[in-house]
């Protein structure tokens, strides 16, 4: 007598679980083949986050704050936004407060930071022009730079203060670059550091023919972009005011209030907020400034000091 093994057809849930299991195994197999390394993945995320961190440090420096103060200010803004939302008792207002603290606060302050950075860069380029003129009048480069640092204008006093002391020139230039936090200043410091010991006549030519014209033109473009950005910012503020006023007005009409009090209405408000933030982000993306390479001046000093170039 033979016993046939009869498999019962799986229930839909069993079938679904089997498909899920196959998908999980498929995922795992593909990632094993791809050689996904958790540590490398974490390193990649850190590397991708670095430009964001740099940007935040730039804003902090532009405001004249330390990075830590800026970080705490951002945390406080998010906290204040959430608290303000909670105080209204409307769930969507909490989301609004969070978005406001997260995006609107840095956006509003970034303009001030940008303007301050521009002022510093303008003063820096003027300082370079003066160094060039003094070198043309036969003053040694180091001496010219130290003399200017002693009588630096208010915008550059803190940035140039390392040059005023007796610190070695290469170290002082690294510190100046660190304080300036501007790619344009970095580029100029790099040229100073690599040319001062090797060929001062070449440095004068480099400043006159290449760096100063490029820096002046870049500053012109940045100033123009700043003016446009200020205009757009004003438009955004006006639109924000109109939309806030409209929301307040429609909330006072019973039918409209009824809509905005329910889930669908609140979702509509989220969509409106996301649209507004998105458009503001697009405006910011369109206004590009001239780009410069980001140098690690400590590495420059380490690399060229041994060869007697820095």
């Amino acid at each position, binding site marked *: 007598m033979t016993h046939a093994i009869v498999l019962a057809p799986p229930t839909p849930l069993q079938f679904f679980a089997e498909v899920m299991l196959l998908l999980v195994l498929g995922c795992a197999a593909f990632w094993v083949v791809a050689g996904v390394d958790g540590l490398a993945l974490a390193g990649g995320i850190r590397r991708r986050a670095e430009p964001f961190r740099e940007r935040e440090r730039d804003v902090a420096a532009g405001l004249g704050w330390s990075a830590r103060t800026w970080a705490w200010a951002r945390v406080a803004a998010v906290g204040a936004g959430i608290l303000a939302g909670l105080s209204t008792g409307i769930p969507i207002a909490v989301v609004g407060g969070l978005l406001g603290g997260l995006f609107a606060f840095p956006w509003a302050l970034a303009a001030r930071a940008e303007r301050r950075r521009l002022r510093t860069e303008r003063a820096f380029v003027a300082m370079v022009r003066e160094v060039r003129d003094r070198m043309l009048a036969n003053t040694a480069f180091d001496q010219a730079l130290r003399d200017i640092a002693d009588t630096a204008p208010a915008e550059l006093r803190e940035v140039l203060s390392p040059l005023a002391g007796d610190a070695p020139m290469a170290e002082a230039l690294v510190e100046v670059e660190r304080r300036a936090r501007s790619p344009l200043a970095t580029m100029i410091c790099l040229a100073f550091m690599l040319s001062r010991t090797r060929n001062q006549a070449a440095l004068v030519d480099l400043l006159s023919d290449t760096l100063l014209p490029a820096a002046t033109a870049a500053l012109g473009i940045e100033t123009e972009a700043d003016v446009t950005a200020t205009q757009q910012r004003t438009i955004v503020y006006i639109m924000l005011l109109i939309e806030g006023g409209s929301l307040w007005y429609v909330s006072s009409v019973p039918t409209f209030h009824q809509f905005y009090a329910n889930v669908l209405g609140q979702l509509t408000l989220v969509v409106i907020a996301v649209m507004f933030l998105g458009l503001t982000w697009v405006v910011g993306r369109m206004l590009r400034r001239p780009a410069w*390479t*980001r140098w690690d001046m400590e590495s420059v000093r380490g690399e060229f000091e041994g060869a007697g170039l820095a």
Partner: protein
Amino acid sequence: MLELMGALRWILLVMLAGGACIAAAWHFDLYTPSHVAATRRLLRMRGLLDTRPIQVRVGERIPFLKQLARETSLTRLLAISGSRQEPGQWVAMTAGLGLLVLLVLSALSIVLRAAAGSSVLPLWLAPSAAGGIVVLAYAASRQSSRGRRQTLTLELGDMLVTLGVLVGPGGASVEDALLSLARCTREKAVYELLRNERWTQLVPVRPRTQYQLFWAIGDAYEVPLFRTLGDVIRSVTVKGLDPLEQYTNLATSVYSARLADAQSQAARAKIKLAIPVAGMILPLLVLLTAPLIYAIVGGGEGMSQWLFSLASVRPLSGRAFETCPQSWLPPAIA
């Protein structure tokens, strides 16, 4: 009808099997006359037979295909973007990611189905999202390679400013000076390309001279500045021109071009900015018209049906409304 289908199936099967046999016979030269096969062997041994891949040979006759193959080549994209992954690894990882999305959306679909009593998410959503992830991954690779090319151009242009000072009389060689400078940038794009000869991914044979190498890198990685640098190196090493003057002139022209580009972009941006600024009227319109649409389509139920009809999805069953908290619902339903 069923008989016809059955017959068609057999015909297809026979055609497939026959095709496979013909392909195998062609591949293994089974019906090639022995003297032709011998001649081919001889030509191959002497390097006179064209052994390039078929896409290259076809591309030579049809330039569009050549351009298409070049533009879509995954190997090239990964090499330019500085990725350490092999194409096979990239395919495996992207497929894994697609499967993960499929998995998550399928699980979500079944959970929502259990909660609502009927299917909420359409059946096509999970596979479409998985396919979308693959397309996005490819687009991200293209974007990454474009960004890398821009970074290479930017770094190289800024290095030229001090390169002349470093390679002047009694100074370092161009390659050494370039490597030393490249090591000091934060992104290290040029350094990653030049160190350990990583450019061999796209330039398999090292050219005989330095300027030819820079030409080849410039062409393969589509960074024209490398080619221009090659020209200057040639004029310095072959014609004996003053390196300081040559490199400084190149730096000046690079900056002039870059600033002209920035100026034209800034001018274009002023016009383009009108679009998002005008678009800011949209949130205001939504704010004012959403309650009206809600009222016109007949409250919450009508609204949900209208929205679902827009998305071609079946509306939530009555059970979903019964099970969710009453405070979530619009007054028309609650």
